[in-house]
């Protein structure tokens, strides 16, 4: 490849978007093969990342920047370090398998092209998120993942449950998105940089600031909403309304891990304080136990897996909170292990649902004979989840225990919590592996048979990867753990994973205890489920019901506000408008002392001296009088014909004023318009039976009259105030001076209209034409309606 390093990183983030745009067309052309074609994109990204991996593993970073808003010094900067690399490889690798899987899962679905487009757009957003260097770019991609997640959850938009799940996920994760935006802005304000790679070097800047608490709360808010931490976890199970590939990809392996990524990314600048550790460990711990118990309560395979995802997210947050070298190492290994086995298990659940027609574990059994390959995939994943030796899950568990063994009593409490949590999860893993596949065969809605290759590739490859990685601890430690932990902690970390069962170490006994408890949980699953269900029924409400209450309250509130504002009475709308006009006229005049000139000062004497009759010629007085008379006649006219004629009188008077004061063009136009108006009004009005008089109750009359007089007086006073100032005539002088030399026209007004403001006049003509067309349409419609009538 002749691409430079810079260009290839940008390509990693942007290529999926391109593929997303093309997806519907490719689907139209290639039909059911489109998934195989589109899977090339993420597969290619994996290849590219592996090519880029070498310098990153050696401890370097690769950066690229595209100018974004240069005037504000913003660049669309990407960078790749150990942490981004682990996440990006996971996203692209699982993404390729998911795209393949979707092709088979939604085979023949009319909107498969759209689905693949959403999926690829999500992948691009997620890759952008983990590669972004600029915090605003991070926010942008963060929100893009929320939106694509919304589209994917609501993909089956005919069902209300899907719509609800989609809206819920969008609302909750967007609250977090807003937190992230504000947090990023505050962080930039404090540190002076938008770039995460620079921020990382400024360790004390945020921690020592007075705003540390605020920044911490904002970033934790963002991470907790996205990564479904208790008590904001409830959107994740509802997101299972999405098609299974989406659950496998977004809601286990990638999108929900964005919060974990963010916390890992911010560890150098925000982490290490007692608040950080306390909050993350407490919430992570509660989430772990809550999710694990939640999983035992469910019988639907996808719901079980969703709850275990919540538990795993809690575990990851807890480990980041601990922040020690071993804890961070455990976090990274667990992330990789979890991504592999959870995505695999979701795909297995989808395959079972697809082939057997149900996902309820109480209705499934003995599928191993009919779906042997699926069973192998499930077993590989579940064993990694249990954490047996030779799987990557084993190392994850070892590392977590290593991080806590030998600590003070608080650490031992956390250790006990981890053992219980892991044991519960191990029990669930056994349930998921054994219940549907072993035991007596139960009748299923569809006659089960093996899933197609595209649906098997994911579970087998991911399950296999979990085992292979477990067999190569040196590689895992050197190429995944060390660079990732170095990126998070900011100092070099030595890999220390070894596949050795040392019976003298307490770790092996803790693992054994976990397995033992896991088997007990598996054995007693039914009893535990009964107890848990009774408990939650006794509680009566959940975060879910609270969410509904809030949303419906919002709708009712909006309806009330809308009704108060949109009452449908035109006169009140207008009253509001004119009251606002009166306030806008008088408030500045009063506030700025604009009315002082009315009050006579001592030097000028009293009012009688100021009341000088303006020097108008008699015929000018006549015209003004004519206008006033015309206006009054409109007001008091007893019949509508007189009102119309009076309207003509005031218009003509205005035309005369224009004529007297040097505006013959205006006078001419005004006269024409006035005559036309009167003629048209007369023709139309004689066709209608209208009320001759203006009936208004006294209180309306008083209100309208006051308002009208106040507004009129305000306009007059303002205009008089304007007249006391000096007029800026630069523009008029320019037109006057250049009219003949440049535009070759003697009539300056005409020159302005057709030359200097030609486009304006074009707009004016368009308005006239538009009005004409609208009038024509309105009149035509009447003819048609009459023609169609009896």
């Amino acid at each position, binding site marked *: 490849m002749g691409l430079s390093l810079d260009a290839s990183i940008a390509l990693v983030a942007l290529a999926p978007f391109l593929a997303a745009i093309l997806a519907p067309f490719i689907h139209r052309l290639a039909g059911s093969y489109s998934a195989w074609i589109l899977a090339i994109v993420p597969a290619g990204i994996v290849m590219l990342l592996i090519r880029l991996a070498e310098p990153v593993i050696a401890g370097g970073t690769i950066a690229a920047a595209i100018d974004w808003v240069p005037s504000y010094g913003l660049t669309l900067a990407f960078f790749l370090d150990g942490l981004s690399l682990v996440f990006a490889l996971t996203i692209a690798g699982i993404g390729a398998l998911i795209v393949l899987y979707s092709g088979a899962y939604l085979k023949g679905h009319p909107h498969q092209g759209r689905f693949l487009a959403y999926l690829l757009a999500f992948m691009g957003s997620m890759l952008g998120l983990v590669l972004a260097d600029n915090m605003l770019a991070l926010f942008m991609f963060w929100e893009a993942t929320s939106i694509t997640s919304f589209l994917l959850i609501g993909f089956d938009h005919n069902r209300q449950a899907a719509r609800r799940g989609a809206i819920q996920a969008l609302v909750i994760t967007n609250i977090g998105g807003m937190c992230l935006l504000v947090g990023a802005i505050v962080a930039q304000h404090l540190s002076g940089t938008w770039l995460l790679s620079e921020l990382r070097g400024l360790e004390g800047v945020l921690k020592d600031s007075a705003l540390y608490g605020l920044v911490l709360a904002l970033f934790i808010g963002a991470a907790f909403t996205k990564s479904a931490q208790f008590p904001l976890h409830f959107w994740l199970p509802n997101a299972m309304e999405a098609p299974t590939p989406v659950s496998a990809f977004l809601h286990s392996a990638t999108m929900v891990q964005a919060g974990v990524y963010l916390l890992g990314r911010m560890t150098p600048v925000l982490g290490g304080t007692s608040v950080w550790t306390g909050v993350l460990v407490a919430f992570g711990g509660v989430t772990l136990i809550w999710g694990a118990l939640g999983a035992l309560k469910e019988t639907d395979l996808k719901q079980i897996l969703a709850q275990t995802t919540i538990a795993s997210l809690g575990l990851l947050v807890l480990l980041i909170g601990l922040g020690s070298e071993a804890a961070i190492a455990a976090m990274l290994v667990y992330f990789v292990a979890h991504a592999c086995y959870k995505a695999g298990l979701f795909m297995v659940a989808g395959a079972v649902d697809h082939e057997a027609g149900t996902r309820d574990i109480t209705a499934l059994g003995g599928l191993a004979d009919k779906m042997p390959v699926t069973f192998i995939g499930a077993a590989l994943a579940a064993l990694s989840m249990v954490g047996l030796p030779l799987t990557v899950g084993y190392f994850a568990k070892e590392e977590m225990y290593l991080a806590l063994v030998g600590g003070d009593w608080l650490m031992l409490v956390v250790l006990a919590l981890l053992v219980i949590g892991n044991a519960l999860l191990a029990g669930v893993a056994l349930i998921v592996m054994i219940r549907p596949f072993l035991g007596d065969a139960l009748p299923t809605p569809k006659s089960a048979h093996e899933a197609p290759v595209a649906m098997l590739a994911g579970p087998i490859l991911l399950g296999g990867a979990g085992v292979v990685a477990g067999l190569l601890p040196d590689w895992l430690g050197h190429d995944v753990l060390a660079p990732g932990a170095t990126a998070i902690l900011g100092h070099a970390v030595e890999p220390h994973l070894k596949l050795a069962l040392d019976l003298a170490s307490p770790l092996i006994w803790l693992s054994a205890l976990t397995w033992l408890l896991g088997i007990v949980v598996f054995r007693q699953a039914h009893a535990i489920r009964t107890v848990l269900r009774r408990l939650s029924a006794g509680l009566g409400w959940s975060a879910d019901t609270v969410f509904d209450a809030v949303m419906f309250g919002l709708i009712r509130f909006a309806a009330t506000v809308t009704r108060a504002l949109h009452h449908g009475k035109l*006169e009140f709308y207008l009253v509001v408008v004119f009251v606002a006009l009166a306030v806008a006229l008088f408030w500045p005049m009063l506030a700025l002392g604009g009315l002082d000139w009315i009050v006579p000062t001592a030097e000028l004497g009293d009012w009688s001296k100021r009341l000088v009759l303006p020097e108008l010629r008699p015929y000018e007085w006549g015209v003004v009088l004519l206008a006033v008379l015309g206006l009054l006649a409109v007001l008091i006219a007893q019949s509508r014909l007189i009102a119309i004629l009076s309207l003509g009188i005031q218009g003509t008077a205005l035309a005369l004023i224009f004529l007297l*004061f*040097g505006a*013959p063009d205006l006078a001419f*136009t005004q006269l024409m318009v006035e005559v036309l108006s009167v003629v048209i009004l007369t023709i139309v009005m004689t066709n209608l039976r*209208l009320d001759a008089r203006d009936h208004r109750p006294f209180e309306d009359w008083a209100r309208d009259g006051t308002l009208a007089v106040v507004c009129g007086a305000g306009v007059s006073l303002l205009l008089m105030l304007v007249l006391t100032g000096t007029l800026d005539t630069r523009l008029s002088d320019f*037109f006057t001076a250049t*009219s003949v030399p440049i535009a070759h026209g003697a009539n300056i007004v005409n020159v*302005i209209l057709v030359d200097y403001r030609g486009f304006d006049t074009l707009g004016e003509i368009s308005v006239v034409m538009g009005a004409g067309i609208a*009038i024509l349409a309105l009149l035509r419609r009447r003819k048609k309606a009459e023609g169609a009538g009896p």
Partner: protein
Amino acid sequence: MDYVLAALVGVFVSLGIYLLLSRSVIRMLIGMTVLGNGVNLLIFTAGRVTREVAPIVPAGLDAPAGPIANPLPQALILTAIVIGFSMFSFLLVLAFRAYKSLDADNTDTMRLAEPENAPQPPLSY
């Protein structure tokens, strides 16, 4: 004389607003026209008034010999008059159609778009 015209603008605006606040559509239309005239006169007056000298350059000259009326407000008002007339015609036909369809020229009884008892929005997703 400016002040006389300024006062006259106030009368135009007052009457226009008073008519606009009526419930009869035709009266609102007349109010619209009056208000428009008032605003045109406002722009005219704000640009200062001179007597009788139209802003036209005499033949053979490059610029007017003496002081002339301010051409800029005139150009603005010319546009405004034409657009005002378009608006007037359109509103008139609209009122006419509304009267024919709804048999009403009282805005209180025209409630097709915002009915008196609008249904509650659905409480679902």
